[in-house]
């Protein structure tokens, strides 16, 4: 019978390459005061991400890799670790 991996370890294993799920990324952005909304006049899935005076539009991939997360960290001042800290 295979040994069940504890939930916490499972989370770490999925983030070993520095990737995070789209839903988690969007939730973390919103938790840090970033507005993430569907952009008007644009195709479905094109989101407008804004905080203060800064904004940009993008489609979020299902899995966001480290380079994209680093960019979000730089642009919106969210520590990278926050994207990996959420446990379901």
């Amino acid at each position, binding site marked *: 019978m295979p040994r069940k991996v504890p939930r916490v370890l499972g989370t770490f294993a999925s983030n070993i390459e520095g990737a995070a799920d789209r839903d988690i990324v969007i939730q973390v952005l919103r938790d840090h005061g970033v507005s993430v909304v569907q952009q008007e006049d*644009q195709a479905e899935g094109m989101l407008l991400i804004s905080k203060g005076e800064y904004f940009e539009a*993008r489609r979020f991939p299902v899995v966001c*890799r480290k380079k994209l997360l680093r960019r979000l960290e730089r642009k919106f001042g969210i520590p990278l670790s926050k994207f990996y800290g959420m446990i379901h």
Partner: protein
Amino acid sequence: MTMQSKTSKPTKKRARAQVTATAVHAEHKDGIHHLVGLGNIRVLLVPDGDGWFAQGLEIDYAAQGDSLSSAKREFEDGLTATVHAHLKHNGHIQELLKTAPNEAWDLASDPSVKLKRYSQVTQHHIIREKSNYEGIAYLIAAKSTEGPGDVCQ
């Protein structure tokens, strides 16, 4: 004389170095129709896990893709949508014209790195958001009435 002829004939390398990034924004007098041209923007394509990451150099925009073509497409679509958002909220694209961080420029100096030049011209139909209160005309009275009761009498 020999020197003159050498300087007047540009080499291939020199001609390539003269290519510069440009950004043009034209607005119709109706304020609704905009034309934005971005020319010769250099985009750094970096392997990123199983996919690719495209980072603009002259414009600090970036996108992730599962393949090289997907990263390019996400960059183009996202940049176009970002230009649209800037026009809608600011009426111009000046805030967008910021260069990439130093780490991207350092990476770009590596000769093995893939760099693509990218140009686009996009047309935008923008109806700018206006405050709900813009239609109110405020009238300033020369003097106030004695009291609220005066109005009713």
